[in-house]
């Protein structure tokens, strides 16, 4: 029997279903969907890092950098989504590549905090730059897509389509990458780095590759977010609480499967949107409370519910 990768099949089905649904979705659903895809992609990068045992409390750096890069290009008169997102992704990746030379030497809490320090430098620069609107940020005009300039609701529909295709490709490649030797190395680095080195592999190089990747996808998420919201501002793009939210999504999803990241992002976005709508005074309370509940009762994230169910199903049959 030929081996069929369930994750690839599942992802493709979900992709096609969403592609189809895009044309019928209500506007608010599409908006939540867009944000989930953007944040989910960032969390995907964190998942790849986490498999080596590293957690970053500063990925708002790349998220914010990508978002601001894309937004600044619109100020210069570029409006093509392909170009903007590509540029945002690339500059964030480049930054990650450069900082990676320093950061790959750090582990555990130091890695997390040094990332935070760098992200707070960006935050400080943005807040102090009057030309970029300081704490208010500035708004981003609707993008065009290779000459096609949609209007009204069509903007979001096209953007969703655009984001969906790229997110699908990224997710698929991450899934396949995790099965390669380099991808499999991450768990080994996490368990025992020195043994990895003895086996002739450079742990630092493994980490650097993953770090650049996480920077790239965080830049992608940021650029998408800037276009989706039509606005960039430091507090929702580059502050340390944003980094905390990404780690939140990663924990919510667990590191078992790439698909879980997007489910986690969607759950996060739903909690946030509804908490904000029905209890604007308590939305942080609800967010923090659900995070605590997950840490206490679902230590391996949402995905573990599925695998638990599967196990329970299998158990009675002899």
């Amino acid at each position, binding site marked *: 029997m030929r081996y069929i990768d369930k994750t690839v099949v599942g992802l493709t089905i979900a992709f096609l279903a969403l592609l189809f649904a895009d044309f019928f979705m209500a506007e608010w659903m599409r908006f939540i969907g867009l944000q989930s895809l953007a944040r989910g992609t960032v969390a995907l990068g964190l998942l790849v890092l986490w498999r080596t045992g590293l*957690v970053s*409390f500063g990925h708002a750096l790349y998220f914010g950098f990508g978002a601001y890069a894309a937004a600044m290009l619109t100020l210069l008169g570029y409006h093509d989504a392909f170009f903007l997102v590509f540029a945002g992704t690339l500059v964030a990746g480049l930054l990650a590549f450069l900082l990676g030379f*320093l950061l790959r*030497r*750090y582990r*555990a*809490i*130091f890695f*997390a*905090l*040094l990332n*935070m*320090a*760098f992200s*707070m*430098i960006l*935050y*400080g*620069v943005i*807040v*102090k730059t009057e030309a970029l609107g300081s704490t208010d940020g500035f708004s981003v005009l609707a993008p065009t897509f290779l000459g096609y300039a949609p209007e009204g609701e069509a903007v979001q529909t096209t953007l969703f389509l655009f984001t969906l295709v790229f997110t699908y490709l990224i997710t698929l490649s991450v899934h396949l990458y995790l099965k390669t030797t380099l991808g499999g190395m991450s768990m080994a680095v996490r368990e*025992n780095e*020195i*043994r990895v080195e003895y086996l002739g592999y450079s742990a630092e190089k493994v980490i650097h590759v993953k770090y650049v990747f996480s920077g790239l996808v965080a830049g992608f998420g940021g650029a998408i977010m800037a276009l989706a919201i039509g606005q960039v501002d430091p507090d929702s793009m580059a*502050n*340390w*609480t944003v980094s*905390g939210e990404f*780690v*939140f999504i990663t*924990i919510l999803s667990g590191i078992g499967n790439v698909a879980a990241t997007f489910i986690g992002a969607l759950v996060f976005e739903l909690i946030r949107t509804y908490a904000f709508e029905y209890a604007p*005074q*308590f*939305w*942080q*309370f609800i*967010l*923090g*409370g659900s*995070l*605590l509940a997950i*840490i*206490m009762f679902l*230590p391996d994230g949402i995905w573990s519910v599925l695998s638990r169910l599967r196990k329970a199903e299998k158990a009675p049959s002899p």
Partner: protein
Amino acid sequence: MLTLIAILVDGLIYSSYLFMVAVGLTVIFGVMKILNVTHGSFYAFGAYMSATLVGIYYQTDLPEFGGFLVIFGAALIVGVFFGVILERGLLRFLYHRDEHIIVLATFAMFLVLEDVLLMIWGTDPYYATEPMGLLGFIDIEVLSYDVYRLSFIALAVVVGLGLWLGLTRTKWGKVLLAVIFDREISQAMGVNVTVVFLVTFVIGSILGALGGAYIAPTISVSPGIGVEVIVLAFAVVVIGGMGSIPGAMIGSLLVGISRAAAVHQFPEIELFVIYAIMAAVLAFRPEGLFAPAQARKI
């Protein structure tokens, strides 16, 4: 010359403030290996409680200088209350988990407490400037300073000295050092680690709350003060080396004086100079200036 004096005095005041906030964080990290994001909430609650209680106190006819006792009382109430609840109610269930999970749990608690703060005190700012008015002004050359702000330096010195003496000169300090050095062995030797953890956490919480309570008279106490202070405290603690009290002192001096210099000379880089120092220090000394090197597991 005048600028230099201004930078030095401002820097010292700011350093003392930073030290007050950061030392609680470093004490908790040193003993329990927990990076406590909730520290920002302790600070904020301390500030609100102090502003409220001081306001109430000065509506009575009690002696004016009692307001200072009220400030310390506010810190004590907040620190003990939240310290005990958080350690007993949450953290003790997580000690065996990954350190990142614990950081995230305290982050979650921070989010929760941010809204609890809004529920209790609302969004309007609070002012309690009476204690500051009591102490008046002092002139250094031609610059005029609040005595209250200068008293920060004294408070920081007292707290720092107290902690250092407590750690090195008392039986409790020795027990604490044993726990820091090896949790399991000290437990085997009959140290009640549960109690040590609880007491440490409560002391750390009180220090965080005191930082907020004591600065409350000089600022407008408004929502969001906790978010700002927590990353500053992180930066200081990381620069000095996590868990080291002299480290926290040097770290806060470094950060405080550079920030004062930036404010006077290049105001536009004020915010980021702190993190630039942090990044620079970590690039050369990964564990911070004063942290002991750790053995790697093979």
